[in-house]
């Protein structure tokens, strides 16, 4: 790394002070694999922290805030190590010109990888302050104390800013720097409110949707009538007549920009275009299509012999389970504002989980160096895995280039449902064998298309085959909160329930019988105890269900009570226990778990994207039902805090337990087994 360059960069931007750099030794940086060649900044930095000569603490990360409250939890980590009040910390996030490279904000990686980096930087900064104070006051560094944003030693006392005056120190942290153990946390580990919460309740926070640049135009894309449609003829004469309207055609991409959104709408309606469409698979044939187009499977966690396991079984069961495509429906739709400078430098403001990925895509699209592209992400109106791709940034940038003015492209809800990507649908087939005493002897699990995450079992089954079969998807699919773990948990935990009922063993007892993993057992028992499992019989028309699982470092167990009236399920009560190591902010963790449970209700009971021959049939909220106030049960969360274990992320795994727990409860209430998500399908 070129330390001089770094020094110049940081201090010209930030003034004097101390900068602590985190060398990217983390899994996060390794996974990213690739660094752009033409990025001037050192590539081995994952995060940095600066203390200015006015005492301001700035921590910097390429992660984006999309509602998971990492702006707060990361600030808590810094405050903890630096012994300063939370309010004195500024977090600079997700700006490709100012923050270090980051692969993206997804996969529940911020807490396990970024938080420790930032925490180390803060700890190293604290040690640097101690060194500066010790040499300035010529005292033994052991006598120097850092507390409440002040540094002191016998007879001496100074604020951070005072100590920093005239200093220009760049230091790369020693990865072995001593961290405050979780058991001693004073700020981290506490429930503190969202750091900039006031801006959200007053409407002041500026989402990308709310940005306006001088001379900004409003862009609108002409969407084809079906997926994969090809443009055969095009006439923009009428649109071009309209005042201030620019039109762009590039292959099958056609769009307009106009001085206000209504004129943009009128201009796009004035375009004449003819499209050629191809016949495409429809909903009714989907599951057969997945199986017909399956490619050779990828084995996960297989072991022993299925044949032997089946030979030992007294009972065997084969069942298949399905999940529908569902949409993310972030309340802030996809949006980007693009602006080209006279020097042909592109700046794009956009809500994305992958600012550096979007920068790379824009550079490729326009054939310019990445250093000439800046992507800035303001705290975003949620994503849930849905904001990984770059198309809306590219749309805005193409229009801005053609118009020679900044352009905003904000997708409508309908575009969002149609032109984004979906959580994969899939088919899961399970064959199992079990002994009369309740020991599972064979587990043969095959997922077609929906994905491999969360397929692994914590059950102790020696003979198992667990395979993911990729396939072709008629609809565009991609990342999603929890991704396939929801489908795989649904299938597995429903199947386990079916086995328990076949043997007439209580579903909790059946699970415990086949389970050695201590952490899994602990959350299962915690949820069951809080729920009062086995204490009483469900009322008529009501049923109880249970499920459990493990994904992305977190263990989860869920109990649900459901009532079914006239075939319609109503979730009455949900208890979910969750363990993800040491808890960083209990209140925000509960908030994430509750939110995941509520979101899971939609996928379990009614969310489903309908489609036919390359068209989405229900691309609006009036025809795609998401959970609302009236759908929400009593929710109780049990946080199993393991201060002795590193913290794992929590944005995703809590979503996986609800569907099987509810389906199993519906079976108890009605005797009808639910094997397809959503249950209304």
């Amino acid at each position, binding site marked *: 790394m070129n330390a001089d360059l770094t020094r110049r960069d940081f201090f010209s931007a930030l003034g004097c002070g101390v900068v602590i750099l985190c060398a990217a030794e983390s899994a996060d940086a390794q996974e990213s694999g690739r660094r752009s060649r033409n990025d001037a900044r050192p590539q081995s930095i994952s995060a940095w922290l600066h203390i200015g000569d006015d005492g301001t603490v700035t921590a910097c990360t390429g992660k984006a805030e999309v509602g998971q409250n990492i702006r707060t939890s990361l600030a808590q980590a810094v405050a903890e190590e630096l012994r300063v009040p939370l309010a004195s910390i500024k977090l600079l996030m997700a700006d490709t010109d100012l923050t270090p490279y980051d692969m993206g904000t997804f996969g529940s990686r911020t807490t396990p990888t970024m938080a420790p980096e930032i925490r180390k930087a803060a700890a190293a900064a604290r040690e640097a302050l101690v060194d500066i104070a010790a040499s300035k006051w010529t005292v033994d560094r052991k006598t120097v104390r850092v507390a409440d944003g002040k540094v002191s030693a016998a007879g001496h006392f100074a604020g951070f800013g005072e100590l920093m005056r005239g200093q220009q120190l760049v230091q790369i942290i020693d990865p072995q720097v001593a961290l405050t153990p979780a058991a001693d946390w004073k700020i981290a580990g506490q429930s503190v409110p969202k750091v900039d919460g006031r801006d959200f309740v007053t409407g002041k926070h500026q989402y990308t949707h709310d940005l306006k640049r001088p001379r900004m135009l409003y862009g609108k894309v002409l969407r084809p009538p079906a997926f994969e449609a090809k443009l055969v003829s095009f006439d923009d004469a009428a649109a071009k007549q309209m005042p201030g309207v620019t039109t762009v055609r590039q292959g099958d991409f056609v769009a307009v920009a106009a001085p206000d959104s209504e004129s943009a709408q009128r201009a796009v309606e004035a375009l004449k275009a003819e499209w050629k469409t191809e016949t495409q698979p429809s909903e009714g044939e989907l599951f057969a299509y997945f199986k017909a187009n399956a490619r050779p499977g990828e084995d996960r966690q297989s072991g022993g012999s299925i044949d032997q396991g089946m030979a030992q079984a007294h009972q065997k069961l084969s069942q298949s389970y399905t999940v529908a495509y569902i949409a993310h429906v972030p309340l802030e739709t996809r949006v980007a504002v693009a602006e080209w400078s006279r020097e042909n430098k592109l700046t794009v403001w956009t809500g994305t989980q992958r600012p550096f990925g979007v920068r790379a895509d824009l550079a490729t699209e326009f054939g310019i160096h990445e250093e000439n592209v800046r992507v800035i992400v303001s705290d975003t109106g949620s994503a849930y895995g849905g904001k990984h791709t770059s198309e809306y940034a590219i749309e805005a940038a193409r229009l801005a280039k053609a118009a020679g003015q900044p352009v905003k492209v904000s997708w409508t809800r309908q575009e969002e449902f149609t032109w984004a990507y979906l959580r994969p649908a899939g088919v899961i087939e399970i064959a199992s064998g079990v002994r009369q005493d309740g020991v599972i002897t064979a587990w043969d699990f095959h997922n077609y298309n929906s994905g491999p995450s969360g397929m692994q079992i914590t059950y102790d089954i020696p003979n198992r085959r667990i395979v993911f079969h990729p396939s072709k998807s008629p609809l565009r699919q991609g990342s999603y909160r929890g991704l396939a773990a929801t489908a795989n948990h649904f299938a597995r935990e429903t199947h386990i329930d079916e086995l328990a009922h076949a043997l007439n063993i209580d579903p909790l007892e059946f699970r415990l019988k086949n389970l050695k993993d201590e952490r899994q057992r602990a959350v299962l028992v915690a949820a069951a105890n809080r729920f009062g499992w086995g204490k009483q019989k469900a009322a008529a028309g009501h049923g109880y269900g249970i499920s459990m699982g493990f994904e992305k470092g977190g263990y989860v167990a869920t109990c649900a009570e459901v009532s079914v009236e006239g075939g319609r399920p109503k979730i009455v009560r949900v208890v979910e226990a969750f363990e993800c190591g040491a808890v960083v902010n209990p209140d925000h963790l509960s908030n994430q778990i509750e939110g995941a449970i509520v979101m899971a209700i939609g996928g379990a009971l009614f969310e489903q994207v309908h489609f036919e021959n390359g068209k989405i049939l229900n691309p609006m*909220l009036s025809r795609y039902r998401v959970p609302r106030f009236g759908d929400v049960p009593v929710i109780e969360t049990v946080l199993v805090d393991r201060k002795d274990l590193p913290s794992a992320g929590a944005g995703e795994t809590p979503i996986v337990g609800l569907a099987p727990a509810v389906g199993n409860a519906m079976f108890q209430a009605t005797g009808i087994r639910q094997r397809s998500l959503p249950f209304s399908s």
Partner: protein
Amino acid sequence: MPSITELDVNGITQRVNASSERSLLSVLRDDLDLTGTKYGCGEGQCGACTVLLDGEPVRSCITPVSKAAGKRITTIEGLEQEGSLDPLQEAFLEVGAFQCGYCTPGMIMSGTSLLRRNPKPTAAEIAHAMQGNICRCGTYPRIVAAVRMAAQRRPS
């Protein structure tokens, strides 16, 4: 096209020049830079765009600006009085009734109008009255708690 030239927003008379069929939402956001009111669906289904017209909640995305002319329009920006938050805003902060916060302005406007009609709503009444507001982050239980907290603190 007839156009609207004046709107009373948060107690201030604002000059505009908007054709009468435009949505109130786009005039507030694009012309008056009052971006606290959000677009979520444009079909009256999510409540992110909720504002009050003479105290009554409306979906500004499907309300033509002509309907708002001559009425008192209250947006999220109008709740704070001389630097102090409305009790419901305070309660949202205290309870942590949001994650991404995108639904929050609409939730607070719907909650405000509910509390004016029914100063002491039960949890069921809150859920019923706010059924038209979507929080995709799923913070509904906390929103209910925040509305109840604000109700309790109101002098009755």
